[in-house]
């Protein structure tokens, strides 16, 4: 058994290092391919619509036969676009001459980036500061397992280059901030918001207004998605629609509320479509309208939304919102939430009302009489739970106090048979926030010795049982 365990460990370790080496090689191949592409561009061998440097000999040769700059390779690659009467050579040439920036290489950005690379956008920028994680893979389809633990920008760029090595992929491996947004955005024609939080959405919209860029905005959570084009053709900006940011309680994250993987996939595809329409100047962009996608009901509604608000603080008639003000605006304060959402870490209780997962484990091992209440929602409890824990979701805590009382009594009888020993009461949740809220109310309701387990089940997995599943 022991040697089996060691073997497995050795194999896993070797797999990890091989995967890392493979990812490195993949990314070097993509980088070299891109370099080669640029070198050939400079020599005029493979003229690309996005490049001003085209050798005059080839240029004149081309102009002798066609009134466009598509190379034979391009004609072949994009032939199905060229065959579309309503798209054709003109729209494809526009696309090849355009640049699109995708902010966020996650659930929305994944399909958006793949389609934008495939379709032949001239220059494609990617902004992200995150790394690929295993729990991203079910929806962030641009990333592969080999890139787990590595920057999403690197992973996404490698995937885009492997789909279309003739597109110029620009990696912005940094968090978008007011300090860098103007400089990055100004290099692109169309901006795609594929982020996952409210402050970024306000910041991106404001930056697009200040620079006069069209913004393709998509969002997805749970089983619903929203899509619209802001700041384009007299349409509204994000602030015209939502002048007041939502309260933090209403800003749910996929990491907390869950999301069906294909839902952001669908919205991301539609974002690519809208970006392509704007960049190639075809069709009727989704400006002044919002698409609402309801995956459960299999229904898509398109609602007419308001036009530009003359009262809007950023794009309105009286607005004096400048680049300077943008740089100084505090989006985290405005929305009361962080630009890089990390799990909330509350600290509501005195130290003596808390216990570490390790200390709790020791007490259980010593046979201490206790009751463990798990205050997570029932569907979380079904994923994984600690042995003998009692699931009472936080909202029903008050109503179910008698259950706690009788569980404590039962435990005392079982352990102490007649002695005056009292059973301890511990509370746990996923990360250690709700457990503190629960302990606060338990204290108020007379259970003054209730304690919460610091860091919740995540700390149990980290400090006590590394095989305990995290989600």
């Amino acid at each position, binding site marked *: 058994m022991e040697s089996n365990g060691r073997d497995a460990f050795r194999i896993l370790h070797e797999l990890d290092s091989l995967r890392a080496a493979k990812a490195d090689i993949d990314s070097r191949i993509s980088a070299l391919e891109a370099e080669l592409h640029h070198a050939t561009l400079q020599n005029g061998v493979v003229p690309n619509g996005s490049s001003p440097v085209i050798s005059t000999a080839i240029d004149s040769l081309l102009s002798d036969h066609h009134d466009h700059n598509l190379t034979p390779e391009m004609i072949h690659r994009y032939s199905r676009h060229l065959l579309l009467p309503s798209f054709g050579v003109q729209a494809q040439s526009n696309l090849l001459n355009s640049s699109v920036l995708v902010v*966020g290489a*996650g*659930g*929305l*950005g994944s399909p958006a980036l793949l389609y934008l690379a495939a379709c032949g956008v001239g220059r494609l920028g990617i902004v992200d500061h995150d790394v690929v994680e295993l729990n991203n893979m079910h929806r962030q389809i641009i990333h592969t397992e080999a890139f787990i633990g590595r920057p999403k920008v690197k992973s996404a760029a490698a995937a885009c280059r492997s789909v279309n090595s003739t597109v110029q992929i620009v990696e912005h491996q940094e968090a978008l901030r007011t300090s860098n947004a103007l400089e990055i955005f100004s290099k692109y024609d169309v901006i795609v918001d*594929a*982020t*996952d*939080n*409210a402050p970024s*959405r306000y910041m991106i919209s404001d930056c697009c207004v200040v620079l006069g860029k069209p913004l393709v905005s*998509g*969002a*997805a*959570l*749970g*089983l*619903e*998605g*929203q899509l619209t084009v802001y700041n384009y053709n007299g349409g509204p900006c994000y602030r015209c*629609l*939502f002048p*007041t*940011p*939502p*309260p933090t*309680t*209403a*800003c*749910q*994250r*996929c990491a907390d*509320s*869950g*999301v069906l993987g294909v839902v*952001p996939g669908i919205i991301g595809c539609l974002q690519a479509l809208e970006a392509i329409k704007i960049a190639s100047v075809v069709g009727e962009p989704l400006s002044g309208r*919002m698409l*609402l996608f*309801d995956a*459960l*009901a299999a229904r898509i*509604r*398109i*609602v*007419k*939304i*308001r036009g530009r608000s003359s009262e809007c603080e950023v794009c309105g008639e009286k607005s004096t919102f400048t680049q300077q003000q943008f740089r100084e605006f505090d989006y985290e304060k405005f929305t009361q939430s962080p630009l890089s959402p990390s799990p909330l870490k509350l600290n509501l209780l005195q130290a003596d009302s808390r216990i570490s997962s390790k200390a709790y484990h020791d007490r259980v091992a010593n046979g201490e009489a206790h009751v463990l209440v798990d205050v997570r929602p029932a569907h979380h409890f079904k994923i994984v739970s600690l042995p003998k824990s009692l699931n009472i979701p936080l909202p029903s805590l008050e109503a179910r106090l008698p259950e706690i009382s009788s569980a404590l009594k039962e435990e005392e009888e079982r352990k102490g048979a007649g002695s005056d020993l009292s059973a301890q009461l511990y509370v746990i949740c996923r990360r250690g926030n709700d457990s503190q809220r629960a302990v606060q109310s338990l204290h108020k309701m007379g259970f003054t010795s209730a304690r919460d387990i610091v860091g919740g089940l995540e700390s149990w997995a980290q400090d006590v049982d590394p095989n305990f599943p995290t989600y």
Partner: protein
Amino acid sequence: MEGKIETQTMDAMPEGKEGSSVKIKVLFFARARDLTGLSEMPMEVSSGSSAHDCLNDLVAKFPSLEEIRGCLVLALNEEYTTESAIVGDKDELAIIPPISGG
């Protein structure tokens, strides 16, 4: 977001006389759907009621909706509307808070 989303009837105006009330359908999206547990709901209000009145009735029935009241888009029959718009019989009032996830 729960898998089962039910439809429920609500009479904001129990003593509705013939002709003095209108029946509308309220559609809930995103966070509004979570807070009410409903995706849509028929509702009866006195004729001449505004979208604002409808919202007041809804917040009275689902107090937690107050949370998003300051940050939502209202659409009447799939078109943007302000709270002052008067709702008519068989109208569809959509309550659309922003989603920020991705």
